[in-house]
């Protein structure tokens, strides 16, 4: 909501400065967002008179002026077409800071003639955009005065109005609040009752009094809509960013912002038959002023003539029966529409307008007649014409809201006592009718306030006028010893982040949305969860996996010249559209190499084992079963079918890992290999409450362990895990570790075979192994591996 200082003073009699006004507005809840005061940059500019004008000796379009500021005379070279002797304008002497150029003016010589200053156009002093001519002030303007004083510059104030303060969407409401805050007196409205000179020829009927409790209409004949709106009005509208269109439109706009009073004006000659206020029929069409056609439903309120809906009541006028330059007879509407009806229609049809904005908040139900009178007064004075009687359908007698305030509640609610007298005085100044009833303050809301429903609302009124800063600040009472506040799941998520970061990955945060073009490959059989109204096409689906976003990030980083990327995110993914059908994934991708090439040659390309290690580390960080995971080579279809795996606990999938399927990388135009993992943190079982912190007792053998190596030739399809499991199974007590130290596939092996070399650790239990013991153990391993995998000793 914007307004100018002079506009405010039309309603408020005050001596307060602009700063005082601005500070008070913010303090009482009308937050000032911006004050634009062009006068603040007018230092140095003064009014001055052109004493004489001579042609420049050496340039046709230039003149040499003698400028007089009352104490000095200056020679000035000027190119403006409107220079003349006796003109009083704004003069910038040498050294003045010119806002347009943000530079100080210097003495110059123009075509051999010295110029000591400048007569200014509006653009040069920042109060307009025109550069056609120098400013001409009235001939009685005193000279030698600061420009800000003689220009009558009006500062613009912009405040943010919260939805509960609809009356402050008009300047008068703001003035009233400032007066209540002690910053002046509210001036009475100077509105005359318009006497009708004839009967309204248009009959008005209201079929839906619930949605439209009051409708007033007045016929005005013989108006001239070709005249210009008065300067005072267009100046104010311009200042708040509304362009003058025609007097009739300007007047409705002006009342919207002056009294927060929406109006509508029909071209009466275009109306067919009588006017009916009714609910629209389902499917009824309406072409609005914004040139769009809408399909209406039966909750939309229409102002209709015999040909159909001509105005979407309280929201927007129609294209066909509105006013134009040639309009001569009008019907002026000033009505009350119920907020719920306006809000619903506006929301469903997605139409925004100043009128809707006001009606869906609150329009003073007692402002219909006064609004009509004020608009009539302005129309008659600007456009001429003759007004009819006012047709009033319904009644303005609307029951005001009542709320009660127990004076002692202030202390128990805001923590500071306020006397009943003080509270009553504040409420009275705000326009409430106040009385004491059984020790309670009874407050009857003024008609312009629609937001006061309960005791807390009244407390807020008192508090905002006293000032929130007056309330003491008291620390929360705390009688308990600080305890761990994160739940086990929350704690896991945090630790997993730190674990993955400690593995050299960067944590990132990406949208919960994804691009359905990419996300479709990651849905794993779930339905797409599409956003009804995505902000952009690329964010149209609730992501089924974090990977689409991480892959997009990889692509973008590669495009920026950073091909080595290792990033992760711990955040929700969505498996269904119902609340709660989501879980937390810890997902990461690695693309490119571990580092750029360097002297040590240690940089290497990321491969599937990096992703596997990340997944296992994340599971471990979340206290999941990482030591003997069930790992099978069957990850989701967006992974490379031969280079990916699934980690399970029973039926539950804990993680997927692997290389991203090349066809998906191709779609994203990523040329390097990308490995990825997804750990579903919600599938990791939480530790039992009963499990203590004590470690299992460490049993250390005094006997020396020994390592022995064996190599087996097996089918290529035999997994490493099967060989390890078989070897371990050979003696569960004495074989404490099995490691794979070589895998070889080559020409000197039979077709379809590979050689796998394992290193075994034998730990004696009671006495040192003899050679025979070791031989026996080795044989057990050879037999077991042979039995389980078909492997033969190489």
């Amino acid at each position: 909501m914007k307004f100018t200082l002079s506009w405010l003073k039309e309603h408020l009699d005050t001596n307060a400065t602009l700063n005082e006004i601005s500070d008070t507005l913010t303090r009482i809840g009308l937050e000032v967002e911006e004050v634009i005061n062009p006068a603040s940059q007018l230092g140095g500019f003064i009014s001055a008179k052109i004493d004489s004008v001579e042609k420049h000796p050496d340039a046709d379009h230039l003149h040499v002026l003698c400028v007089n500021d009352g104490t000095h005379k200056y020679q000035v070279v000027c190119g403006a077409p409107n220079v003349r002797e006796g003109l009083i304008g704004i003069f910038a002497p040498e050294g003045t800071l010119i806002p347009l150029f943000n530079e100080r003016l210097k003495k110059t010589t123009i075509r051999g003639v010295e110029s000591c200053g400048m007569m200014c156009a509006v653009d040069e002093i920042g109060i307009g955009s025109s550069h056609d001519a120098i400013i001409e002030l009235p001939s009685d303007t005193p000279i030698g005065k600061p420009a800000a004083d003689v220009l009558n510059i009006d500062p613009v104030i912009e405040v943010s109005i919260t939805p509960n303060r609809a009356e402050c969407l008009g300047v008068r409401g703001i003035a009233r609040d400032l007066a209540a805050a002690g910053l002046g007196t509210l001036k009475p409205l100077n509105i005359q009752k318009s006497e009708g000179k004839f009967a309204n020829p248009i009959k008005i009927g209201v079929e839906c009094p619930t949605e439209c409790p009051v409708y007033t209409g007045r016929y005005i004949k013989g108006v001239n809509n070709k005249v210009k709106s008065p300067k005072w009005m267009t100046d104010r509208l311009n200042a708040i960013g509304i362009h003058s269109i025609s007097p009739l439109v300007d007047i409705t706009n002006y009342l919207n912002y002056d009294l927060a009073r929406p109006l509508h004006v029909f071209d009466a000659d275009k109306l067919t038959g009588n006017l009916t206020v009714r609910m629209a029929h389902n499917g009824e069409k309406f072409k609005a002023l914004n040139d769009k056609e809408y399909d209406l439903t039966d909750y939309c309120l229409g102002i209709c003539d015999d040909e159909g809906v001509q105005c979407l009541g309280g929201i927007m006028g129609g294209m066909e029966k509105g006013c134009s330059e040639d309009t001569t007879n009008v019907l002026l509407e000033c009505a009350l529409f119920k907020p719920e009806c306006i809000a619903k229609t506006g929301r469903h049809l997605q139409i925004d307008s100043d009128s809707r904005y006001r009606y869906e908040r609150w329009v003073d139900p007692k402002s219909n007649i006064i609004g009509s009178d004020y608009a009539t007064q302005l129309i008659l004075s600007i456009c001429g014409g003759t007004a009819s009687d006012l047709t009033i359908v319904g009644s303005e007698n609307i029951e005001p809201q009542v709320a009660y305030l127990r004076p002692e509640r202030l202390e128990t609610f805001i923590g500071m006592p306020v006397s009943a007298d003080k509270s009553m005085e504040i409420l009275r100044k705000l326009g409430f009718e106040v009385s004491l009833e059984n020790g309670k303050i009874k407050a009857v809301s003024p008609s312009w306030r629609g937001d006061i429903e309960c005791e807390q609302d009244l407390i807020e009124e008192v508090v905002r006028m006293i000032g929130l800063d007056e309330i003491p600040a008291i620390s929360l009472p705390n009688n308990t010893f600080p305890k761990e506040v994160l739940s086990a799941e929350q704690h896991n998520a945090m630790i997993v982040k730190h674990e993955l970061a400690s593995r050299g990955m960067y944590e990132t945060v990406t949208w919960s949305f994804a691009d359905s073009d990419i996300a479709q490959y990651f849905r794993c059989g779930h339905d797409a969860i599409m956003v009804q109204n995505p902000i952009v096409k690329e964010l149209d689906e609730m992501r089924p996996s974090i990977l689409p976003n991480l892959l997009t990030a990889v692509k973008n980083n590669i495009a920026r010249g950073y091909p080595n990327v290792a990033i992760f995110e711990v955040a929700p993914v969505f498996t269904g559209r119902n609340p709660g059908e989501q879980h937390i994934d810890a997902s990461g991708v690695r693309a490119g190499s571990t580092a750029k090439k360097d002297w040590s040659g240690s940089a290497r390309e990321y491969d599937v084992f990096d992703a596997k290690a990340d997944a296992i580390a994340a599971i471990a960080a979340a206290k999941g079963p990482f030591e003997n995971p069930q790992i099978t080579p069957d990850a989701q279809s967006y992974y490379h079918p031969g280079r990916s795996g699934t980690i399970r606990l029973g039926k539950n999938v804990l993680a997927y890992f692997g290389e991203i399927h090349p066809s998906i990388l191709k779609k994203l135009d990523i040329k390097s290999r990308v490995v990825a993992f997804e750990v579903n943190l919600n599938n990791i079982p939480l530790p039992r409450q009963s499990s203590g912190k004590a470690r299992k007792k460490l049993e250390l053998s005094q006997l020396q362990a020994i390592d022995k190596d064996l190599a087996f030739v097996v089918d290529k399809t035999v997994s490493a895990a099967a060989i390890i499991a078989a070897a371990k199974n050979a003696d569960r007590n004495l074989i404490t570790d099995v490691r794979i130290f070589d895998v070889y596939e080559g020409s000197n092996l039979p077709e379809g075979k590979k050689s796998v070399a394992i290193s075994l650790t034998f730990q004696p239990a009671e006495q040192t192994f003899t050679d025979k013991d070791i031989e026996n153990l080795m044989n057990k391993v050879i037999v077991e591996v042979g039995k389980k995998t078909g492997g033969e000793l190489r």
Partner: protein
Amino acid sequence: MENLEDLKSEILNKINAVTDLKGLDDIRVSVLGKKGQITDMMKSLGALPLEEKIALGKGLNILKSEVENAIEAQKKILEDKALNEKLATETIDVTLPVRPETQGRIHPVSKIYEEVVAIFGEMGFDVANGPDIEDQFHNFNALNMPANHPARQMQDTFYLNNDPTQPFDMDTAYVIRTHTSGMQIRTMEKQQPPIRIIAPGRTYRSDYDATHTPMFHQVEGLVIDKNITMAHLKGCLYDFMKAFFELDELPVRYRPSYFPFTEPSAEMDIGCLKTKTELKIGAGTDWLEVLGCGMVHPNVLRAGGINPDEYQGFAFGLGIDRLAMLKYGIPDLRTFFESDVRWLKHYGFTPLDFSSMTGGLSNNGGLAR
């Protein structure tokens, strides 16, 4: 005996002159070996008369021991020399950089989450989580925002058709939560007062410009008990802000505002100094809005199943991303979500940078590498 003296000086000269271990060993063999000079002389002692035998034997023993010592000493010198020569050939340019390693990073959003949890945890708050996809009851209606409430227009809501087999209906559709305030209701549904929770999480609004992103992060706070007043609200938030910005003093002010779910409602500003190049929190003449708050509206308590005549309290909502920007001087909100590895490295935090009120809120991970 004079011969022995001559022999001794002859041998010692040879020992001292030798320059390599092999030469030294040759000398040892030639003097002390099985057929060495001194060995031979000792062998020949047997043929001498007793007195001579004793005298010469003694002399030879002394000589032998002196030679042995000399060889040992020379050996040590030569070994040291050889080692030094070997080491000299092994020189490595230690100014070469270390092998590449990447220190990971924690995103500022996670860091601020941990700081906020540490502070409110100390004040006895629990941390609540809730769904990102919400029904309108929890996101709006229960928060005193019925379907046609104008405040709904303030929040550009993302909708989700709750039944894709049916046409979209704005009044029954799910929403992607516009705030974490719905957690007020979900908490009250589960728990009677006293309540002290914060609910951090992702929030979504259809807004995308220099200062708005369609997703951002909020922390909702809720305190309900019998005697909680607006003075506690001010005290709690002041304590939080001071702790968060790690300042002993912090100017604050409150402005009346409006949220449907609180009454009275306020916005909190903190004092700062804005210049073209920096923003200094805690000093100066400018004000920065940091959060919205208020006393919980009786309708909200009722919607959560709590009797407003018995209990009262306050709620607040603050922006995690905004707090990150203010505390750590991050200029642009949009960059939080761009996954630019340069940004993540620069504005991210080291893996060991955990937050605690007693162990330090920030700077716990050492310098970033």
